[in-house]
Structures are given as structure tokens and as C-alpha cells.
């Protein structure tokens, strides 16, 4: 597929909204789709599913651990069970249940965490999820996906449902720029090159994909040719895409709204170390953030195109 050269990056829907809508469509097509909620349906947007299919929606109250294990029981009996909450709650409070009732027995559970990262803004660090990818990736057998926009989220909800095995799908609270045109094809485990370039590769997931596209624009004005890759599947990683980026551009910057420790960056570094070691830089979090508007929080904690561009310059110097 030809790589687009211009992205308008017009603001689209939040990925949680795309998830909620896709879930309703999925529910219409497949009677086996069921949803469990822990008193956040209006935030995770599964309330649309609840309204449409009340018999297939289970209110668990504020009890994430119970919700995850109930989802595993439903999945063990042949249902395509989605359990949804904020990432911070479903991963942290439900981790033991994800491990023992889903990962270890390889149960077909679909886990959706919304309000991921720090862009939830005002609610602050107790609700922000910056460890979820590290936790989810630690579970053998789990597929871990962090879509960048509404089109990709819609597609990945379907792909997650079609995949046999446990999946963690990461969604955000705020509206994010549209990157893909409707009809774009996605695959679990496949990266997508959004901008071609030869000097450095900018890899990202979630809302940092749009920032990386913007960073490529900043770098282009400086005469640097940056490749941009969306890596929606954190696990299993597209190691071929990493190897090719490392060998063709010799420098990689990984940007993510997550702790650097345990995030996509270290997974990319591991893959590069096994195929084609290259200079790498990381744009991510190193500590808990704070309350503020989403824009202010993202800026203060270094989640902007300027931060990505700066990291690329550092990488180029070390090349």
C-alpha cells in the first residue's frame, strides 16, 4: 500500500467511543458476545451495548477482580466475553484473575482498558494507567493492542473478537486525531508504515502516533527524513518491521503514553538487539503524573511532537 504523504490529523472520536460503537455492531452480528462492567459503563462506553442487549450485559458492581474471573467463566463456556473498565483498575485490581483464570489456562477472554495513559487529565494519577502494557505483556499468551484512532480501534475490536485467546485492548479517554481512512486493513501483529523516511524511524502506539507524524513534519523542515510506524500490536511484536527499520534507518525513537520501563520501547529494543542493534531513544513516562487538562498534562510530562523530534535529534547525533 502506498504511504500517504499528508495527514490532516483532524480530531476524531476517542478510542473508547470507537470501542463502544464497535461492540454494539459486534453484538448485533454475534449472539455469543457478552459484556461485563464494573460501574463505569458510561465512561467505557459499554452502556450502548447494555442498552441494546440487556440480557448479554452483566453489571458486576465495583468489583473488578470478580468481573474478570466471571468473564473467564463465560469465555470458558464458549462466550466471547468482553470485560471493560479503566485500564488502571482492570489491570491492577484484576491482574491476579487475568493471570490465573485467563492467561494460564489460555481462556478466550477480551479485556478492554479505557482511560489509559495520562491524557485522562484532571482525575489524576490514581486513575491514570501507565503500567498496563507492562502488566499485560507479562502474561504469556495475551495479545496486547493499543490502537491510535477510531478507525483502527473499530477494526481491532473485531480482530480481538475473532482471535482465539486472551486479548488486552487499550483505549483512551480523549478525542484523538484521525489517522486512517475507513476501510484501512489491520492485522494483529502487523505494524503500519505511515510516513516513509530514511534517517530515523519514529515508532509509536496510541495517541503518540499522531504526535510522531507531527514530529516527522518538524524534522522534515530541518532536512531530516523520518519514517513513522504505527505499532498497534504491542505483543506479539512485528519484529520484521523493527529489523527493517533498524537496518534501513539506523536509529529508532519509540514514543508512548506509558512508562518507558516495560512498554513498547523496551520490546522494540529487545527485538532490535536480536536482529539489527541500532541507536535508540525513548519518549515515555518515568514516574506518576498529576492532575490538569489533558493538554497541560501531556505537555508537562513530555508527550508531544516536540519531545519526539528532540529525541530523534539525540538519536541522530549518536548515529
Amino acid at each position, binding site marked *: 500500500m502506498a504511504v500517504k504523504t499528508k495527514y490532516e490529523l483532524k480530531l476524531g472520536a476517542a478510542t473508547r467511543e470507537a470501542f463502544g460503537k464497535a461492540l454494539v455492531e459486534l453484538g448485533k452480528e454475534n449472539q455469543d458476545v457478552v459484556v461485563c462492567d464494573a460501574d463505569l459503563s458510561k465512561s467505557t462506553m459499554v452502556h450502548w451495548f447494555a442498552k441494546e442487549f440487556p440480557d448479554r450485559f452483566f453489571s458486576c458492581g465495583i468489583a473488578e477482580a470478580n468481573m474478570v*474471573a466471571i468473564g473467564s467463566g463465560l469465555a470458558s463456556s464458549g462466550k466471547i466475553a468482553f470485560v471493560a473498565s479503566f485500564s488502571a483498575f482492570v489491570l491492577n485490581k484484576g491482574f491476579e484473575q487475568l493471570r490465573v483464570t485467563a492467561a494460564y489456562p489460555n481462556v478466550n477472554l477480551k479485556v478492554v482498558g479505557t482511560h489509559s495513559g495520562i491524557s485522562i487529565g484532571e482525575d489524576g494519577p490514581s486513575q491514570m494507567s501507565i503500567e498496563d502494557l507492562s502488566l499485560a505483556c507479562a502474561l504469556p499468551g495475551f495479545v496486547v493492542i493499543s490502537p491510535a484512532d477510531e478507525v483502527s480501534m473499530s477494526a481491532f475490536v473485531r480482530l480481538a473478537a475473532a482471535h482465539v485467546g486472551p486479548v488486552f485492548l487499550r483505549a483512551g479517554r480523549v478525542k484523538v486525531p484521525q489517522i486512517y481512512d475507513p476501510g484501512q486493513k489491520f492485522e494483529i501483529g502487523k505494524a503500519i508504515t505511515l510516513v516513509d523516511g530514511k534517517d530515523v524511524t519514529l515508532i509509536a502506539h496510541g495517541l503518540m502516533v499522531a504526535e510522531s507524524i507531527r514530529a516527522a513534519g518538524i524534522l522534515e523542515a530541518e532536512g531530516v527524513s523520518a519514517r513513522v510506524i504505527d505499532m498497534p500490536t504491542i505483543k506479539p511484536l512485528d519484529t520484521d518491521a523493527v529489523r527493517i527499520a533498524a537496518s534501513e534507518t539506523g536509529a529508532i525513537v519509540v514514543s508512548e503514553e506509558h512508562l518507558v520501563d516495560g512498554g513498547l520501547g523496551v520490546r522494540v529494543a529487545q527485538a532490535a538487539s536480536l536482529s539489527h542493534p541500532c541507536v535508540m531513544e525513548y519518549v515515555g513516562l518515568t514516574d506518576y503524573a498529576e492532575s490538569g487538562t489533558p493538554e497541560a498534562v501531556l505537555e508537562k510530562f513530555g508527550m508531544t511532537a516536540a519531545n519526539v523530534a528532540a529525541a530523534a535529534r539525540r538519536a541522530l547525533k549518536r548515529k
Partner: protein
Amino acid sequence: MQQTKDLAALQQFCTRIRRHIVEMITEAKSGHPGGSLSAVEILAVLYHEVMRHDPENPQWPDRDRFILGKGHAAPVLYSVMAEFGYTPVDQLHTLRRIGSIYQGHPDRRFIPALEASTGSLGLGLSVGLGMSLAARLNNSPTRVYVVLGDGEIQEGQVWEAAMFAAFHKVDNIVAIVDFNKIQLDGWVKDIMEVEPLADKWRSFGWHVITLDGHDIPAIRSAFSEASATKGKPTVLVAHTIKGKGVSFMENNPKFHGMAPTKEECAQALAELN
């Protein structure tokens, strides 16, 4: 469903299961005899007379489900499943050995006929509820049976599940508390009292049946009452004796998680006739 056996035959079956438990744990040199021996009659009645299951067709969608919440009592479950032909009896002695299907705690990767992998306490009732909900959606006659330890119910998730079951009027699930009064570190009342247990479950909206968990006619009648109870979940608070059937293990906290020596095994087998 199996035909009701006469009482003497069922008691003989229980003795055979107890012999398996003692022998396999002795051979393994580790394991949990006390809480395996306390649950023998409960599992014997379930598998012989209550549950709709078919060892020839373990994935039959409308089968009843059994989950051993207290996964450390795996030897009682393995022995019963083996006696029913799910797994080989002559391999029971490989318990806990590398490569054995009889893992330290129930593991579906090794025995696909197991409904859940358990061992971390407090999760089984929730998983069972998911299966109950699926059965309800499918208009399936499936019923779900979950055996919980009395120590296990100290886990908060059990009470999340208890609240959920009553709220959603899940009446195709039965929880059985193997109330043997002893947990790893000693007596339950000294570690974290769970009494008044029947009152707790009742206040959570469950139909509660209190019984002697070694009295086979009482167990039969409790499961019949559970099946007839509609609109709410049922729990059997089964008063049992840890280490039941082996004199020196009975009510002895030491045998929660300690294997008998060869000599103790011989003595136990002499008692189990």
C-alpha cells in the same frame, strides 16, 4: 446422571478415594492430605449421583461443571476423576512429578476435562458464576458446583461473587464450603474467624443448608434441596473433619500441607479398609 448407589457401595468408594489420596501424597512426598480427605463424601455424592457428566464425552456442552476452588485439595479431585475414567488410575502415583498430568494444583493444560485451573484461592466461585451465566443465556440445564475451603472464603473476592450471585438471581450454581475448621497456619478461628458462616451467606442473599459433610444421606438431600431452590443461589455449609478417616490426621493442622511418611502411610492404609 449416575444411578443412586446403595450407601455401603458409596462408602466403599469413599474409602478407595481416601486410600488413593494417602498413597499419592506419600509417593509425592508433598501435598495436602487434610483438606483432600475432608471433601471426599462431597465429591463422591456429586460425581456419583448429582452431576450430569459423561467421562466419554467430557466436552459435552450441557454437562454440569465442577470447580475445586480450594485447588490444593487436588488429590481428591484427581482420585474421583480417575475412578470415573477421565484419567488413568494407575498414574495417580505420579502426582507432582515432572511431566505428570497430576500437577500440584488442578491444571487444564494437562487435564482438559478440568473445568478450571485453580490453586490461587478465592477465584473459583467467580469463574463458576461465569459458567452459570453462560448456561442461563443458552437455556442449558447445566448446573455449576464449586467447592470452597473455609480458609479460602477469607478472600474478599468470594464475597464479591456472593453478592453478584444473589443480585443476578443465579440459581444454577451451588457453593459448598468444606468447613473443616483448619487452614495452613492453624485453626481458622485463630487465623481469621469466618463464623457465623451460615448467617454471612444468608445475609448475602443465599439459600443456606448446614449439614454434616460426611453424612452421605444428608449430602444427597442437601443437593436435592439446592436443585429445587429457585431464584437464588444455594450454599452448603458442610461441617467436616480435616483429615477425616485417618485417626492421626483428623483435626491435626500438621496434615494440612504435609505428606505422611511411609510408616504413617502404612498405618493410614491399615485404617482405611
